[in-house]
């Protein structure tokens, strides 16, 4: 027991064992899960073509082969069209000034008995230049930030998790508050909204940028209910996220452009990838990383020593992953 507690507290302070677990277990799981969808489609195709039709005469098979092939091609094209539609929506995410954008695919949701937080697993990691706390956006707004990293995979803490807190501002009335998740199936709560502060149902909540993690002005949630309960000094405000975590397939990772590169690095007005040479056909799988940074031996994202405000989490694993108080 003493050995365990010693290991636990040492790891909480240093994060070494967490890093080891991320760089082995998470990485292995990524390589197992990534081909899963492909394997599933192949198995399904095999079943359709060779098992389901067992017993039918060969003549019927040849007559229907063309139809099956055409149907499969149609299904494939429809899938590609849907994917192109989703990717084009990802491309419409225009990174704020001094921020760059990189696409990533969601390969899994919560995984295993220790996945206690609301998370999704991405197919990009430290080798793609990502860092812990990198903001993650969907087509409609912020969905979370990076929690853990391995060389080619990353875990995203969603804003709907009860441990996620983000300082927000209402887009129209500029009322400030702290957006707190309440779980995947529950509406989020906006805390510390003063009684007299103006706020309307349906109003968009955008990041205030005060925690120095998310860029300012990105949509996070939409207000669904504003009221008052009991003798509280604050309003009771509920908001809904701008994404459905179960339907997330592609996301955009927003990275701060270093100061020395920032001079001419403003995002292009057409919303296209702002990294020169980035493939236009598939921004998710072909977009080159902005910079390949070797992983830190401690397992933390390289360059994590950037200054942070007091509210932001300290070095990884030292404190709960809160983006703000």
């Amino acid at each position, binding site marked *: 027991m003493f050995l*365990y507690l010693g*290991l*636990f507290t040492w*790891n*909480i302070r240093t994060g070494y*064992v*967490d890093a*080891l*677990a*991320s*760089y*082995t*277990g*998470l*990485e*292995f*799981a990524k390589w*197992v*899960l990534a081909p*899963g969808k492909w394997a599933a489609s192949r198995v399904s195709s095999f079943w359709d073509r060779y098992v389901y039709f067992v017993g039918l005469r060969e003549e019927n098979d040849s007559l229907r082969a063309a139809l099956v092939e055409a149907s499969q091609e149609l299904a494939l094209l429809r899938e590609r069209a849907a994917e192109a539609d989703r990717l084009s929506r990802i491309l419409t995410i225009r990174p704020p000034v001094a921020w760059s954008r990189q696409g990533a695919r969601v390969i*899994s*949701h*919560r*995984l*295993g*008995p*220790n*996945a*206690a*937080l609301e*998370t999704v*697993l991405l197919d990009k990691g430290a080798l793609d230049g990502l860092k812990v706390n990198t903001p993650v956006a969907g087509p409609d707004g912020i969905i979370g930030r990076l*929690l*853990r990293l*391995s060389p080619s995979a990353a*875990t995203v*803490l969603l804003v709907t998790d*009860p*441990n996620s807190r983000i300082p927000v501002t209402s887009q129209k009335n500029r009322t400030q508050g702290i957006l707190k998740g309440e*779980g995947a199936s529950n509406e989020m709560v906006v805390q510390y909204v003063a009684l007299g502060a103006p706020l309307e149902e349906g109003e968009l909540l955008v990041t205030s940028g005060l925690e120095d993690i998310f860029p300012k002005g990105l949509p996070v949630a939409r207000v669904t209910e504003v009221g008052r309960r009991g003798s509280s000094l604050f309003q009771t405000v509920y908001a809904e996220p701008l994404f459905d975590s179960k339907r997330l397939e592609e996301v955009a990772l927003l990275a701060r452009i270093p100061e020395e590169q920032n001079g001419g690095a403003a995002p292009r007005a057409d919303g296209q990838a702002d990294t020169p040479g980035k493939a236009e056909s598939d921004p998710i799988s072909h977009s080159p990383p902005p910079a390949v940074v070797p992983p830190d031996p401690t397992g933390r994202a390289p360059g994590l020593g950037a200054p942070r405000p007091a509210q932001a989490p300290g070095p990884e*694993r030292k*404190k*709960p992953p809160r983006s703000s108080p």
Partner: protein
Amino acid sequence: MNISAIVFWSLFTLLGIWLQGAIPGVDFLAPGLILCLQEEKWTVSAWLALAWLFIQEGTGSLAFGTGLLWYGTLVGLYYFGHWLFEAKNFLFMFILGISLGLLHLILSHVMAVLQDWTLPADRILVEGFLQALIFPVEWGLLYLIYNHLPDNPHAV
């Protein structure tokens, strides 16, 4: 460990990870550890436990140590129950499944408190129930498959 056993445990690990992606919060590798303790040498079990420990810790979001307690308690419960029950008795596996379900609730709560986190109790409860339900069923299937391996001396 012979080739068929290596292939078996490798495929089991891959399938377990995919199933864990399909049903979040449930450990699909734990029944394999128990079967391995029942059928293989302890060194094989130790290596498999170490590999699965890092998979669970790496893919999880709790601080390192939860998986250690999880698999440590599972092995402890197995050896403790081994004194009272026949090791391959389905009733024993059923009780072990219930114990794992309860352990999931307790461990999640304790680790969340230690890390000052908040976890939705209803979700953890459902996961514990699923773990208790799935564990004996998966162990039973695994036991049947393992004992039909061609190189198994106990092959049916």
